[in-house]
């Protein structure tokens, strides 16, 4: 195949990837979009295979066995994962992409001749810079994603792990990486394998240190950011290999992840920088709380009674619903309510859950009709007309302190204004404070009833009482 044809076909797969993302603008076109994405990948793959030396049996064996192992593992994972575990799944897959970028950079470094990177027997300077950048971004993606995975999977504490002098340590590591890289770039005549290895190890360490101080509820930002990095890593390698598909795709994925991080940060009214610095929710910021103020605690029967007499109910799901896997029970309850002629809608805060759109997937899994689900901006004006706001597993995203209390760490965060509803029902495991470590004024209001139990059990019991 000629180089021109190869590049045109890679461009075609890039265009198909754009269309795949474009398809996600509506659920109706999304599935077609996914098939376009798969076709784009198939084209990129076939073009690459066709350009290989067809007579080398070992290459074929390696490629076929590699794809079989990877393909079967990937297929198995994708069939097995529960929808509640999607954030972990994305983190795990992301780590694969990051590692893959690191390894490809290494392969190119070890065998530059086959990529046409040699000038006078040594790797040319711009390729070296690209490889080092690829290693840095790819390795941070890998180790960062692994940590995010461990936190989300509960294999590691979800709360921030704060090392002393962590910012200084990180900066020192980064400067060392820069120094090592500079010495490799300036002296183009050596092979520098050891330095390259050192850069790889330090970059892995940096990714780890960057993510461990970030707490669970900031995961939507972290996952989006790592997603973005995996794209940029691919794009950088694309420069080294002179590959159109990689450059286009990397840029697409990079900007997609960056936009998602931005949306998540905006939804928390926090700067991207402050999220990345980590440590949020670590210090007990609440001062005035827990003075044993009276709280109305209700049973499932009480809740059922209130719901039965309502004419409009808004359900606010949060991460707690995902943890308790209560989405199906919730759907059942809302079906019963709808059968009684009660209007049910769902309000989703952008940062509800552990990744962008997490709640939407869970509700889709439970067969909740699409048109009953609303975003923050669409539904906030409806709370004053609602009889019941049913908060299940959410807390901080409903906390009026974000509007009233300038001292609050979440001040300025856009919230779902559930306090405007006639009655607020709060399903929670305990009266504990939310992730941000702040008390929720709503718990103590007259029109609030706390339903303290496991979310799934509580909802099931309410269904029975209905």
């Amino acid at each position, binding site marked *: 195949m000629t180089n021109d044809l190869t590049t045109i076909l890679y461009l075609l797969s*890039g265009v198909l990837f754009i269309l795949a*993302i*474009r398809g*996600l*603008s509506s659920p109706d076109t999304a*599935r077609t979009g*996914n098939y376009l994405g798969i076709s784009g*990948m198939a084209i990129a*793959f076939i073009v*690459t295979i066709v*350009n290989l030396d067809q007579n*080398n049996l*070992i290459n074929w064996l*390696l*490629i076929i066995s*590699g*794809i079989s192992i*990877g*393909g*079967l593992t*990937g297929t198995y*994972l*994708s069939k097995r994962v529960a929808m509640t575990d*999607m954030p972990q*799944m*994305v983190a795990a*897959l*992301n780590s694969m*992409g990051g590692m*893959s*970028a690191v*390894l*490809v950079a*290494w*392969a190119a470094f*070890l*065998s530059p001749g*086959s990529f046409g990177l040699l000038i006078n027997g040594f790797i040319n300077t711009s390729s070296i810079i690209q490889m080092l950048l690829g290693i840095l971004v790819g390795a941070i993606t890998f180790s960062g994603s692994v940590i995010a995975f461990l936190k989300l999977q509960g294999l590691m504490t979800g709360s921030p792990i704060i090392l002393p002098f962590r910012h200084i340590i990180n900066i020192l590591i980064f400067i060392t990486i820069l120094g090592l890289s500079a010495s490799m770039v300036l002296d183009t005549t050596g092979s520098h394998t050891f330095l390259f290895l050192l850069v790889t190890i330090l970059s892995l360490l940096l990714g780890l240190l960057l993510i461990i101080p970030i707490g669970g509820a900031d995961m939507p930002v972290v996952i989006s950011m790592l*997603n973005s990095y995996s794209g940029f890593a691919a794009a950088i390698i694309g*420069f080294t290999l*002179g*590959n159109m598909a990689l450059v*286009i*795709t990397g*840029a*697409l*994925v*990079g*900007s*997609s992840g960056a936009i*998602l991080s931005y*949306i998540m940060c905006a939804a928390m009214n926090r700067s991207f920088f402050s999220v990345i610095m980590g440590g949020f929710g670590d210090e007990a910021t609440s001062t005035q709380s827990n003075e044993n103020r009276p709280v109305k605690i209700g049973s499932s029967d009480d809740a059922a009674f209130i719901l039965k007499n309502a004419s409009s109910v808004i359900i606010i799901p949060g991460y707690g619903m995902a943890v308790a896997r209560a989405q199906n029970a919730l759907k059942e309850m809302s079906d019963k309510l709808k059968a009684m002629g009660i209007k049910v809608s769902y309000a989703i805060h952008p940062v509800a859950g552990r990744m962008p*759109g997490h709640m*939407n997937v869970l509700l*889709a*899994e439970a067969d*909740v*009709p*699409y*048109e009953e689900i609303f975003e923050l901006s669409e539904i906030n004006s409806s709370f004053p007309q609602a009889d019941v706001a049913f908060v299940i597993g959410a807390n901080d995203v409903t906390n009026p302190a974000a509007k009233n209390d300038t001292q609050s760490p979440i001040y300025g965060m856009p919230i779902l204004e559930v306090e405007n509803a006639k009655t607020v029902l709060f399903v929670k495991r305990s009266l504990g404070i939310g992730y941000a470590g702040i008390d929720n004024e709503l718990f103590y209001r007259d029109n609030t009833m706390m339903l303290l139990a496991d979310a799934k059990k509580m909802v099931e019991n309410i269904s029975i009482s209905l």
Partner: protein
Amino acid sequence: MDISPIVFYGSIFVLAIFVGYYVVWSVTPALHTPLMSVTNAISAVIIVGAIIAIGTESSGSLSMVSKIVSFFALIFASINIFGGFLVTQRMLAMYKKKGKKDD
């Protein structure tokens, strides 16, 4: 006119970032999770690099190491591709039922 590859690919890169920017803003927030899993899958187009590296002519001791390294890159990228696309498909199938109800 000769332009250096870095400028050529750099131009493509910059334009693709703009395309990505506008396309991603058009994605509905309800589909942000599938957006992440599908972008995850397509970023594994890095598999192309792994295959090129495997196709390296075997000369010298380091090129053998390079082959092995790229074999692992291939495995990781395939996990990412298959896992990413299939899990996206699984999610989108759930949304689809609603699409029908909408009509």
